[in-house]
C-alpha cells in the first residue's frame, strides 16, 4: 500500500491560485471585454463570487465526508451503479480538461513564441512534465507550487506596477453606465475560469486540516479574483476596451509595452516562464485527479501503472481536439456551460442528494 500523502493549507492555496490564474489571465481580458467592455472588472468580481459558491459546495461535501474524494462520494451517495457512472463521467472530465490544457499550452507557444517548433513537441513536453510530476506524487508538486506561486504572483504584480505610469484612468469611465446586470452576460465564461476548482474535490482529503483550511481556500479564490481583475484593469487602462478585444493574448501586448531605463525591453521570457509553470501545475492537478479517480473507481493497487497509457491518450486527444486557436477560443467562450456543468452542477447535485439522505446534519459520515 502506498504512503498517504499530505499537503498543507498553503500548498492547497498555491495549487488553487496557480491553476486558476496563470492561464486565464493571459487571454481573459480579450474575452471579457467582449461582454462587458470597460466594465469587465465587475464581471470578474461577480465571477469571484461564483468561484466562492463552487468552493462552498466542494468544502461542504468534504465536511460531510472528510475521508472521501469526489469519486468515493459519488459512489457512496448515489450507489455503485449510478454513482459509478457519474464517477466515470467526472474522471472523463478530468482527462478531458487535461487535454484542453495541454493543447492550450502548445497553442500559446506556437502563436506567441516560436512557430518553427512542431506542435507535437510542445504537446509531448507538457504531458511528460505533468506525468512526471504525478509520478513523483502530490507532495512533490504541491511543494513546487509554493515556489511557483511566488514567481507567478510577483511577475504579474511586477508587470502591472511597471506599466502603471502608462495607464489612462479615463478609459474606465463611465463606470457601469448600463447598470449592474448588463455586464453579466459573460458570467458563464468567467464563472468557468474562476470556478475551475473541481480538482480540489480530489485533494481536500489529503490536506492536513486545521481551523484555517477554509480560510486559505477562500483566500485563494480572493487572490485569484484580484489578480484576474488586475489583469483586466491593466489591459483596459492601457489599451482601452476595444483594442484589448482585438488581441489574442493581451498580456503579451502588455509586457511588450514595458521599457526600463529606455533600452531594456522585451520581457517575454518572464511570461513564458509564468505560462509554462502555471500550465504545468494546472495539467498536473487534473492529471493527478484523473489518476486518483481511476484508482478509486477501478480499485487499482498500482495506479501509477496507468499513468503512461492515460498520458498517451491525453496526447492524442489534445492533438486532434481542435483545429487551431480560433476554435479553441470559441469553445472556451461559447461552450463554457460544459465546464460549468461539472464544476457547479455535478457537485451541487451530489450535495443536494447528500442532504436529502440526511447526511447534512452529521459532522462526519462513515468511511
Amino acid at each position: 500500500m502506498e504512503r498517504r500523502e499530505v499537503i498543507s493549507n498553503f500548498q492547497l492555496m498555491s495549487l488553487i491560485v496557480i491553476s486558476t490564474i496563470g492561464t486565464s489571465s493571459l487571454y481573459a481580458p480579450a474575452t471579457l471585454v467582449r461582454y462587458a467592455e470597460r466594465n469587465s472588472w465587475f464581471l470578474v468580481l461577480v465571477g469571484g463570487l461564483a468561484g466562492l459558491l463552487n468552493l462552498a459546495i466542494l468544502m461542504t461535501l468534504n465536511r460531510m465526508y472528510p475521508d472521501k474524494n469526489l469519486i468515493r462520494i459519488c459512489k457512496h451517495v448515489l450507489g455503485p451503479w449510478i454513482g459509478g457512472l457519474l464517477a466515470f463521467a467526472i474522471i472523463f472530465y478530468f482527462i478531458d480538461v487535461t487535454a484542453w490544457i495541454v493543447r492550450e499550452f502548445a497553442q500559446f507557444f506556437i502563436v506567441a513564441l516560436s512557430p518553427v517548433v512542431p506542435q507535437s513537441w510542445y504537446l509531448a513536453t507538457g504531458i511528460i512534465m505533468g506525468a512526471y510530476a504525478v509520478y513523483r506524487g502530490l507532495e512533490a508538486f504541491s511543494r513546487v507550487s509554493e515556489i511557483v506561486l511566488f514567481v507567478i504572483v510577483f511577475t504579474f504584480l511586477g508587470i502591472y506596477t511597471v506599466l502603471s505610469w502608462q495607464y489612462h484612468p479615463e478609459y474606465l469611465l463611465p463606470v457601469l453606465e448600463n447598470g449592474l446586470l448588463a455586464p453579466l452576460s459573460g458570467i458563464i465564461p468567467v464563472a468557468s475560469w474562476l470556478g475551475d476548482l473541481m480538482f480540489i474535490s480530489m485533494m481536500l482529503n489529503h490536506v492536513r486540516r486545521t481551523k484555517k483550511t477554509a480560510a486559505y481556500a477562500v483566500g485563494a479564490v480572493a487572490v485569484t479574483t484580484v489578480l484576474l481583475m488586475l489583469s483586466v484593469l491593466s489591459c483596459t487602462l492601457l489599451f482601452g476596451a476595444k483594442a484589448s478585444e482585438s488581441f489574442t493574448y493581451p498580456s503579451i501586448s502588455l509586457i511588450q509595452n514595458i521599457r526600463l531605463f529606455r533600452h531594456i525591453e522585451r520581457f517575454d521570457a518572464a511570461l513564458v516562464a509564468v505560462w509554462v509553470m502555471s500550465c504545468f501545475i494546472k495539467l498536473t492537478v487534473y492529471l493527478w485527479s484523473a489518476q486518483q479517480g481511476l484508482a478509486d473507481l477501478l480499485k487499482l493497487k498500482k495506479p501509477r501503472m496507468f499513468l503512461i497509457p492515460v498520458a498517451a491518450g491525453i496526447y492524442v486527444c489534445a492533438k486532434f481536439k481542435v483545429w487551431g486557436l480560433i476554435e479553441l477560443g470559441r469553445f472556451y467562450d461559447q461552450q463554457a456551460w460544459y465546464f460549468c456543468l461539472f464544476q457547479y452542477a455535478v457537485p451541487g447535485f451530489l450535495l443536494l442528494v447528500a442532504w436529502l439522505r440526511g447526511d447534512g446534519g452529521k459532522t462526519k459520515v462513515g468511511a
Partner: protein
Amino acid sequence: MSDRQTEFSEDLAENVRRIRECMQHTDDLIFVDRELASGKPIKIAYLKGLTDDRRLEYLLAHAREFGNGDFAFGDDGWRKSIQQGAESLAAGQALLLFADPPGAAAIDLLGVQLRNVEEPSSESTVKGPRSGFTESLTNNLALVRYYCPSPQLKIESCKIGRLSPTPLAILSVGGITNPSILKEVHRRIDEITADFIVGSNAIEEWIADHRGTMFPMVESTERPDRVVGALMDGRIAIIVQGTPFVILLPFVFLQAFQVGEDYFWNFYIGSLLRMLRIFCGLIGLLLPGFYVATVTYHHELVPTALLQSIAAAKEPVPFPAVVESFAMMFAFEIMREAGIRMPKQIGQAVSIVGALILGQAAVEAGIVSPIMVIVAALTGICTFTLPPNAMNYAIRLLQFGMTFLASLLGYVGLVAGIIGLLIYLASLRSFGIPYLGPAAPLNAQELTDVIVRRPIPWDSKRPTLFRALNPYRFRGGDK
C-alpha cells in the same frame, strides 16, 4: 566453528597457532615470550609496523609488572576469543596472552604515522579557524571536543565492516538532537552489511534515503567548526576512521550554498556572499542553456545592437550554438579535471594554457564564437564560487541537460527542465526532512536565514527543519 573452539585455551602454544591461523599466517605478526613476576609465562603478540616502537619497548621491558587475568585489565581490555584477539591486533593493539585464566589483554599501541592538523584544502577560508580534520578518528573526536567542550556532546562508537571492521563515531548533542532522527541513523548504520568500508562516502551511500541520485543526501566537511555548528542546530555528525571528511545529516538543498566562513564576516558581507553563491549557482546551471535558446529560437528578444554583435561574432562559425556550447563546456570540464589531477605547480599552468591559448585559438580558427567563450568561462567561474561538494558536480552535470532541452524547445525547454528539476528535488528527503526545505514546504522565516545571514544576536531560534528538541539557541535574542 563453535564458540568453545574460538575461545582461548590454557595452552599458550595452541593459542599462538590459532591466532596465526586466524590471521592467515601473516609475516608481520610477532610473538615474544615473557614471564610475569609470579613466574608464569605469557606471550606478547603485535603487528610489526602498526605499533608505536617506543611504547612497545616499554611494554616488553615492563611485562613482568603486569597483573594476571581479566580483573587486572577490566572487561574493556580483556579478549576471550581468538577472533576478538585477532581483531585487536589488526586494530594496532598488542595482546598479552595468558594461560591462567585463559584469555588475552589488549593494550592500545597504535603508532601509524599520520599527518598533523592542517588547514583543510577543500574548504579554505580567508577569515576563521584554520584547523581541519585528519585521518585519525581519535584526533578528530578530540578536535570536536576542543571546539565544543560541552558535557552534552554525546559520542557513540561502533564498527562497520564484516571482514575489516572500521571504527566510526556518531556525534549528537543531548537535549538538542531529535532522538527519532538519531535512532534512524543507528538503524541505518546497523543495516550496513558491507565487508569493509573505505571512507565516509561509502557510509553516505549506504545510509542515504535515495541511492540513485546525483544530489548529495548528506553534507561532508573537513572543518571542526562547521561540525560543531551543525551539532548545535540539532544535526548529527558521523566521523569515520581513515578519512578527514565528516558526514553531517540531515542535509537540505539550500545548505549547499552556505560556507562556515559566512559567520566569520560581518552579516552584510556574509549575506551578500551567500546570495552571490546562489546567483552563481543559477548562472552555472542556466546560462549556457539561456544563450543557446536565445540565439537559436528567440532572436527577437535580444536588443538589436547586441543581436548584431552576436550575429557578427557567429558569422564565421559553421556550427549551431548548441554544438559550440557543448564543445566549450566539455573542454572546460577537461581542463578543470586536468588542473585538479596534475601536480599543483603544473595544474595552474594547464588552466592558463587551456583558458587563454586554447580559447583564443578556437575563436581565431572559427570553431567557436567569442561570445560562447565568454559564456563558457563565466559559467565555469560561477561554479567555482560554490563550495566543492557533490552539489557543485550535480550542477555542472545538469547544465548539459538544460542546454540540450534549450536547444530543442528554447525557453520552453529551459523552464520545463527547471520544473522537472524542482519536482525531482521536492520529492527527495534526507532522513525524513524535505530536501527543498525551508523553501518548499515554505517556512518564510527560516528561508530568510538560509538566503541571508542574519546578525548572530537576532538568530535565537534553531532551524525547525531538523526538529531540534530545544528550539532556542538563547532566550530573548530575537527582538
